[in-house]
């Protein structure tokens, strides 16, 4: 194969797409850089089922999901992951650890999404 088989449109396309991808990576990184406190949001079917402050977590914590498939989510200080899942393709488990704001792990069969958010516009203090 020699490169002459590429046409002008191909080159523009590839360069353009890589540029867009890099820009988005930069943007994702930028958002990630500004958060100090990490919080994990676990949603199922669009509803928040658990919110964990990862930065303040001392011991590891596991969250069990029973329906519609059995899953175990493990949270540790500063990171979280799907530990095991009874779903067929294991995409969620293979995603591995999430440790930066914006990172997501999703499981389509159970409709569970873990998202890490930086407590960027975090609350300064609490009145109680």
């Amino acid at each position, binding site marked *: 194969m020699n490169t002459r088989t590429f046409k002008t449109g191909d080159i523009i396309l590839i*360069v353009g797409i*890589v*540029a867009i991808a*890099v*820009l988005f*990576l*930069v943007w994702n*990184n*930028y958002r*990630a*850089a*500004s958060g100090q406190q990490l919080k994990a949001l676990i949603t199922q079917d669009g509803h*928040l089922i658990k*919110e964990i402050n990862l930065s303040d977590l001392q011991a590891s914590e596991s969250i069990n999901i029973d329906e519609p498939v059995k899953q175990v989510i493990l949270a540790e200080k500063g990171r979280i992951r799907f530990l095991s899942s009874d779903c067929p393709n294991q995409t969620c488990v293979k995603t591995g650890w999430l440790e930066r704001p914006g990172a997501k792990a999703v499981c389509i069969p159970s409709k569970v999404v873990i998202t890490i958010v930086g407590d960027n*516009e*975090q*609350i*300064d*203090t*609490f*009145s*109680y």
Partner: protein
Amino acid sequence: MKKVIWALVLLSLPVFSSACNTVQSKPVKSTDFALGTIIEQQVYGANAQKASDEVWAQIKERDALWTINSPGGDINKLNNNAGLGYVELNPETISILREARRISDLSGGAAFDITVAPLVKAWGIGTDNPRVPSADAVQELVSLVNYRDVLIDEKNGSASLLKKGQMVDLGGIAKGYIGDRAIDIYKSNGITSAFINLGGNVAALGSKPDGSPWTVGIQNPRGENSDIVGVVEVVDKAVVTSGDYQRYFIKDGQRYCHIFDPGTGYPMDSGLMSVTIIASSSTDADGLAKVIVLGLDRGMEMVKNYGRAEAIFITNDKKIYVTPGLKGKFRLEDATHEYTYIQNG
């Protein structure tokens, strides 16, 4: 080659942007335990360390002076001499007693009264041994509750309690009062950006260093610690919440909280779970938050009569009533989706 350079430039952007973030001045943060609660300071500026140290020193001093059980403290002296005549007190104690009187006057003692201490003691809420006293006992103790019986002799710097058995407890005002004093100390040190949080009573000076308002989370009255129902943004304001959830006990299915209705002698049961007051003075906010005893309608009316405060009332049926002045400053942030926001008035 050009493309490689571009890619490198783009990739280096996040490094620069994260470097910029660290340039911002770091606050002096400190946390300690005093006045029976957790106190936290966050102070920005050149004198931040000095200012927060001064505040800590003052808090420790006042704590010894005002805690009801501290032997040799002013409040202890005053209570032990109830019905026996005047005792000489620290000028700061005289000052807070005067403030307490002013706050009590706002509701005529219906919401706030610093002499409920005999009732607090009889019920023992918050201690290891809470109990429901007999109706007769409550009746008798209610007759001792009257903030007007705290007599202040300004000239001699002394005060007295009129009747034997009467007791003063500054628990309902000390945190608010010290919040205002802390703000004074910050200001005298040239600080323009700081807050102090005394067990949930927040007093904020100025705005954040970047000019944005302080964000204060409002506790979900039925959630865990730091579960919030909403966020209020403030500049130069105190945010104080009174809630039925901080200390309570349940006996025979009845929930008894630590806030007393000075009129009945029983823990308040007004249909409100919490009241948050936003005002310039943290003392006033602390005092006004006690309108939780009066219930939604009378409470709101009192806030309106006071005129310089905004409020967030949360009722037992999880409705959040917010005064018009908080429009755009309060936002519902309720992860449980159980609360309903209602704009009041």
